């Protein structure tokens, strides 16, 4: 690989951080998505309102604003809470990485909840009635009946969301996380070669989204292997 003014390794390290970000956000995104979807489909009106307003709020507010709010606001909130508990003034810093993860999980979770809601509604009601008739408890029904099928119905939506997630990690560079775009910006500034560095950054992102698309397509084929024949 050509050495990019001796910064090729730096860019690869940035790529590693981007991958770390994506993989750290993913489980939280799925968790928030499942919680949000369950709230939207809940029997209780209060929970439904919370679930719906979560999506409406996040859908209308730019991701960048959420990231900035959590990065700047989160530090103050944690500091206040620490002062309440400890009773004295303390200095707390939330690492930019984790505030970024929190912001992206919150944002992507809202979109994931829509995906999971649709997937849950796609499960035939007869199967759930049959499971109830067999004497399964609701948690058992969720694990044995809903979850394995949820996977298949939700995969196309998750494919899309993961693409968006990869691209959204670039926004965290704004609060100083050393991922691809941040490394590129530093390189562009010190070597006075912005075109080269941003071109490399874009190619790296393009490679990531292409790989993600490929992997998800394979997973989709695999998840519907019992169905495709029918």
């Amino acid at each position, binding site marked *: 690989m050509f050495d990019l003014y001796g910064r090729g390794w730096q860019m690869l390290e940035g790529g590693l951080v981007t991958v770390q970000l994506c993989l750290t956000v993913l489980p939280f995104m799925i968790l928030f998505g499942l919680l949000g979807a369950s709230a939207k489909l809940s029997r209780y009106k209060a929970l439904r309102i919370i679930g719906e307003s979560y999506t409406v709020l996040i859908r209308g507010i*730019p991701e960048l604003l959420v990231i900035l709010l959590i990065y700047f606001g989160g530090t103050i909130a944690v500091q206040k809470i620490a002062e309440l508990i400890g009773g004295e003034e303390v200095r707390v810093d939330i690492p930019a990485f984790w505030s970024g993860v929190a912001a992206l999980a919150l944002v992507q979770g809202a979109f994931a909840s829509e995906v999971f809601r649709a997937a849950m509604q796609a499960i035939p009601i007869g199967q759930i009635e049959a499971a109830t008739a067999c004497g399964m408890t609701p948690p058992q029904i969720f694990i044995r009946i809903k979850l394995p099928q949820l996977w298949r119905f939700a995969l196309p939506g998750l494919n899309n969301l993961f693409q968006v997630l990869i691209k959204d990690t670039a926004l965290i560079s704004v609060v100083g996380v050393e991922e691809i775009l941040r490394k590129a910006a530093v390189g562009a500034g010190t070597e006075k070669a912005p075109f080269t560095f941003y071109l490399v950054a874009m190619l790296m992102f393009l490679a990531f989204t292409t790989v993600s698309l490929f992997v998800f397509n394979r997973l989709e084929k695999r998840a519907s292997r019992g169905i495709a024949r029918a």
Partner: protein
Amino acid sequence: MFEDLIYVLTKYDSWLWQGFLLTIQLLAVSVVFGSILAIPLAIARVSKLVWVQAVPFAFIYVFRGTPLIAQLFMMYYGCGQLISNIDGIQDHWTWTYLRDPYWYCLLTFVLNTAAYMAEIMRGGIQNVPNGEIEAARACGMTPFTTYRRIIFPRMWQIIWPAYTNDVIFTLKATSLASTVTMMELTGAARKIVARTALPYEAFISAGVIYLIIVYFLTFGFKGIEKYLRRNERREGQKSGPAKAGGTV
């Protein structure tokens, strides 16, 4: 807590208002010019000729596969530097425009929006029922007339919900202009935070303004959807219960 909010809203209201105007401006230009650019891209994309398809495919693939913020930096810092390296450009009258981040933002947003919308339009064009296109051809319409009278009106009907979504995404995308020193809504909020160290008040105020814009956009686009689907509504009324009572 509320004193701080009122303080931010009264002392910095002009910043937020200017930011709001700039956000709306960026949004309107991106959506209008993005849509205009998307139409030929979408038509080329559904072409049967592979090499005609390849150009919009590559364009859409690159713009949808990379982060908008990277495209913006590429355009503003990368291309901006290439331009500033041209001999004597800094004395040329165009230099005032060529160093202004505004034009780089607009260009990036227009291209990005065009890529997303072209993909939506491609789906819309391909979903126009084949029979209607065949009927148009049987009536002797030229390809141009077919597009104008049959395919486009149908396409807009089909894509409108997705198109609305995309406009809202473009609105959110305009917040990235703040990363290249533009003072739109997010930029104004960031400046207020830098001045007052009140992140909640400033960012939440900006967030609420975004939500209000989204509310009005959704509302307005729903109205246009009704207009686009006016043919269906008329059919519905004919068979509807209100009319049935009247004709008997």
